């Protein structure tokens, strides 16, 4: 089981309680599709992803970014049981969506960059460590059901 310090728990709750899920989700997914363009392979039905401006302006990207962030909420509310919480989502990403798990880390890195930009100096090294640990646990849970 994952051990969380008081600081880590408080940090995660704090970040997400103040977060604009729609905006952060949109920006994180946009950044991922621009910085790692091969991730666009999963979004063939999204229409125009031709360049950074098109991606940023694409309403399907914005909507899906929000879906992903709200999905993270499950982990925020169940920090002591993330593995079980994501069992179904893991099966979905493996069996139905066929997402290479390496992509989870790419999106997580982009989310970290977006949150860092929003929090500025509030995103201290200790906060960064806690946030990245949280995302690593989520990624591990999402990868769990792959076989």
């Amino acid at each position, binding site marked *: 089981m994952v051990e969380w310090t008081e600081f880590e728990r408080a940090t995660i709750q704090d970040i997400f309680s103040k977060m604009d899920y729609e905006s952060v989700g949109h920006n994180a997914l*946009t950044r991922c599709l621009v910085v790692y363009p091969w991730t666009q392979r999963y979004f063939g039905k999204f229409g125009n992803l031709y360049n*950074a401006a098109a991606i940023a302006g694409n309403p399907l990207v914005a909507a899906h970014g929000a879906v992903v962030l709200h999905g993270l909420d499950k982990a925020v509310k169940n920090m002591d049981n993330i593995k079980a919480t994501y069992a179904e989502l893991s099966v979905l990403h493996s069996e139905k969506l066929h997402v290479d798990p390496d992509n989870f880390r790419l999106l997580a890195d982009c989310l970290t*960059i977006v949150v860092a*930009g929003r*929090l500025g100096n509030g995103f201290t090294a200790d906060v960064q460590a806690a946030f990245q640990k949280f995302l690593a646990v989520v990624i591990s849970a999402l990868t769990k059901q792959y076989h």
Partner: protein
Amino acid sequence: MSLTAKDKAVVKAFWGKIGGKADAIGQEALARMFIAYPQTKTYFAHWPDLSPGSESVKKHGKTVIGAITAAVEKMDDLIGGLSSLSDLHAFKLRVDPGNFKILSHNILVALAVNFPGDFTPEVHVSVDKFLAALSAALADKYR
């Protein structure tokens, strides 16, 4: 994933904006790395103090970012331009090249924190590519 003319222009322009803040960025990236990726501290066991505000971290952050800033002018031939630094890392320091990616990530985080408006996705992708190409050049002599 080679650097296009556009990547080089974007990196040069953005690095120009960083200007005098470069040393602080280097220091911050190193400090973040030591805290978020504690395994990286194993290469610095000989330092008396690895805390974020320490003289060692400040000095070394300046050294590292100075080399990266110099590399901005060498983008047309990073392997040639970083040859002696590659020798150093390969034969003397023997830093596992996986760590170059880790430090690069922390440099990106420091840039995002300090230049939130300028570090757009387009700038991010070009800088990420530059740091990746630089890391590859640094690892060139390893084997």
